[in-house]
C-alpha cells in the first residue's frame, strides 16, 4: 500500500498547522495544501482573552510560527479562502470562488464558531473568537464602558477579569448557579464566583438574558429572565461555540456534535479530523468526547497526521486545560463529568492553592489544580493510572513525594 501524496488540511489554526507540520516531520513529501479563511498568518487563541485583550502583548507575539518554519513547511498556504464543500465522489475540497482541490488525504480542522443570542446584532455587542474580535473588543473597552458579560464559562470569566483589571464596571451573568458550572461543577464554580466578587465583579448567576435593550441601534442595557435589568454600554456574549461543520453538510461524513471520528481520529478512509471540531472515542476514558482545549488541538493534530500516514495508534490522551483569571491559574487534567464526586487531594481551597480530584464510577478521572502547577503535574499520574475511587488518604502524598 502506498501512502497519500496529495494532502489537504482545512483550517489554519493550531490544529491545522500542527497537522501540516507533523506530516512533514514524519517524512511526508507529497503536495500539502493548508486552507484557512482568516487573512492572518496562523495565530494562537488563548492569549486573545488574556494578554491581547489586556494590551500587555502586541499581536505579533501570538504568531503560531515564524516565517522560517512556515516556509520550511513547503505547503501551499491558501489564506483568506473558505472551504465551502466536500465532494467525496471526486475526492475534492470545494473553495469559495469555485476552485476545486484534489486530495487523497484530508485533515479537517475548522474549529468552532461562537454562538450568539437573539437580538445581539446591534452595535456594542461583541463575540470573541478571532484576533480581529479581540482587537475590536479591546479598542471599545478603552472607552471606559459599563460592561456586561453574558456567559460565565472560562471565556466570559477571563473577559470579566481583564475588564476589571482595566477598572471597568463589570457584571457577569450566567443561568447556571455558579461560574464554570458545566466545566467543573458546583464546588469549584463557587470558588470561581468568589474570586470574581472579591475583585469587584457584580455576579448574577441563576438568571439568563431575556433581551437586549437598545436605542438608535446601540445596546444600552440588558433585561434578565428574573425581570431585573441593568445598563450596559458594551456587552460580550460568551455562550459557547458550535463546530464549524456547515461546509461539510451533504458530504456524507458523519456529523453530530462535530465531525464524528473513531478511536484513531479517522472520519472515513483517508479523512481525519482534529482540534475543536473533532469528536472521537477516547479509549482511556472509554467515552466519546469533543474538546475545545488548546493542548488537545496540538496532540490530536499530531495523532491524526500520524494515523493518516499509517501509524495506526488510537488517540487516548488525558486532556489538559487551563484558564487564567486575575492571579488565579486553574489547570485541569482529565474529564469532569457532571455527576462526578470531588475531594481535595492537596492544599486548602480557602488558601486558593489546592488540587482536587474527581471520581466517576469508581475511578479517578480528573484532577484540578488552583495555583498549584507542580503538584498538579505530579497528581496527573493518578488519572493516567486510573486510580480507584475514593482514593486512599496516602495516595496523593505518595504521588507528590515520588
Amino acid at each position, binding site marked *: 500500500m502506498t501512502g497519500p501524496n496529495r494532502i489537504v488540511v482545512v483550517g489554519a489554526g493550531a490544529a491545522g498547522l*500542527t497537522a501540516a*507540520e*507533523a506530516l512533514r516531520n514524519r517524512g511526508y513529501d507529497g503536495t500539502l495544501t493548508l486552507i484557512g479563511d482568516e487573512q492572518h498568518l496562523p495565530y*494562537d487563541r*488563548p492569549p486573545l482573552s488574556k494578554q491581547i485583550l489586556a494590551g500587555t502583548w502586541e499581536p505579533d*507575539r501570538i504568531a*503560531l510560527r515564524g516565517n522560517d518554519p512556515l516556509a520550511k513547511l513547503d505547503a501551499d498556504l491558501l489564506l483568506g479562502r473558505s472551504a465551502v464543500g466536500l465532494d467525496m465522489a471526486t475526492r475534492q475540497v470545494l473553495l469559495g470562488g469555485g476552485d476545486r482541490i484534489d486530495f487523497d488525504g484530508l485533515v479537517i480542522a475548522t474549529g468552532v464558531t461562537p454562538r450568539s443570542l437573539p437580538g445581539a446584532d446591534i452595535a456594542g455587542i461583541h463575540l470573541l473568537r478571532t484576533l480581529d474580535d479581540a482587537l475590536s473588543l479591546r479598542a471599545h473597552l478603552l472607552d471606559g464602558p459599563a460592561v456586561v458579560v453574558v456567559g460565565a464559562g472560562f471565556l466570559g470569566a477571563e473577559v470579566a477579569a481583564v475588564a476589571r483589571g482595566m477598572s471597568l464596571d463589570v457584571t457577569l451573568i450566567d443561568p447556571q448557579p455558579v461560574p464554570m458550572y458545566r466545566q467543573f461543577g458546583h464546588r469549584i464554580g463557587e470558588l470561581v464566583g468568589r474570586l470574581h466578587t472579591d475583585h469587584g465583579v457584580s455576579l448574577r448567576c441563576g438568571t439568563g438574558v431575556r433581551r437586549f435593550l437598545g436605542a438608535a441601534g446601540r445596546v444600552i442595557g440588558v433585561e434578565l429572565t428574573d425581570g431585573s435589568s441593568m445598563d450596559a454600554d458594551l456587552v460580550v456574549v460568551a455562550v459557547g461555540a458550535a463546530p464549524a461543520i456547515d461546509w461539510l453538510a451533504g458530504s456524507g461524513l458523519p456529523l453530530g456534535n462535530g465531525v464524528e471520528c473513531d478511536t484513531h481520529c479517522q472520519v472515513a478512509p483517508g479523512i481525519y479530523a482534529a482540534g475543536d471540531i473533532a469528536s472521537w472515542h477516547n479509549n482511556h476514558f472509554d467515552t466519546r468526547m469533543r474538546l475545545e482545549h*488548546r*493542548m488537545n488541538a*496540538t*496532540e490530536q493534530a*499530531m495523532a491524526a497526521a500520524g494515523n493518516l500516514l499509517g501509524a495506526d495508534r488510537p488517540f487516548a490522551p488525558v486532556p*489538559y486545560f*487551563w484558564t*487564567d483569571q486575575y492571579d488565579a*491559574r486553574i*489547570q485541569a487534567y482529565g474529564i469532569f463529568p457532571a455527576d462526578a464526586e470531588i475531594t481535595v487531594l492537596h492544599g486548602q481551597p480557602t488558601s486558593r492553592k489546592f488540587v482536587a480530584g474527581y471520581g466517576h464510577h469508581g475511578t479517578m478521572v480528573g484532577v484540578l489544580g488552583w*495555583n*498549584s*502547577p*507542580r503538584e*498538579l*503535574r505530579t497528581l*496527573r499520574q493518578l488519572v493516567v493510572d486510573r486510580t480507584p475511587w475514593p482514593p486512599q488518604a496516602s495516595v496523593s502524598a505518595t504521588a507528590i513525594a515520588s
Partner: protein
Amino acid sequence: MRVIIDQDKCVASGQCVLAAAGVFDQRDEDGIVVLLNDNPPAELHEDVRQAAAVCPALAITVEES
C-alpha cells in the same frame, strides 16, 4: 541543539517536564519553566523536540545545529 525558553509566555502547564524531565523543570512558586540544560545531549533531542511541539504556550524554541 540549542534550547531557548520564554518564561513570559510559559503558562506553567508542565508538558515540557513530562516530555523531557532532564532538560526542563518548573519553578516551585508558580510552575513557570526553568531550563536545566540549554545544550542537551543527542539522546534527549527527540524528547526536547516533542516538548517544544506540545508546549501549549509556544514558549520553547529549538535551534538545531
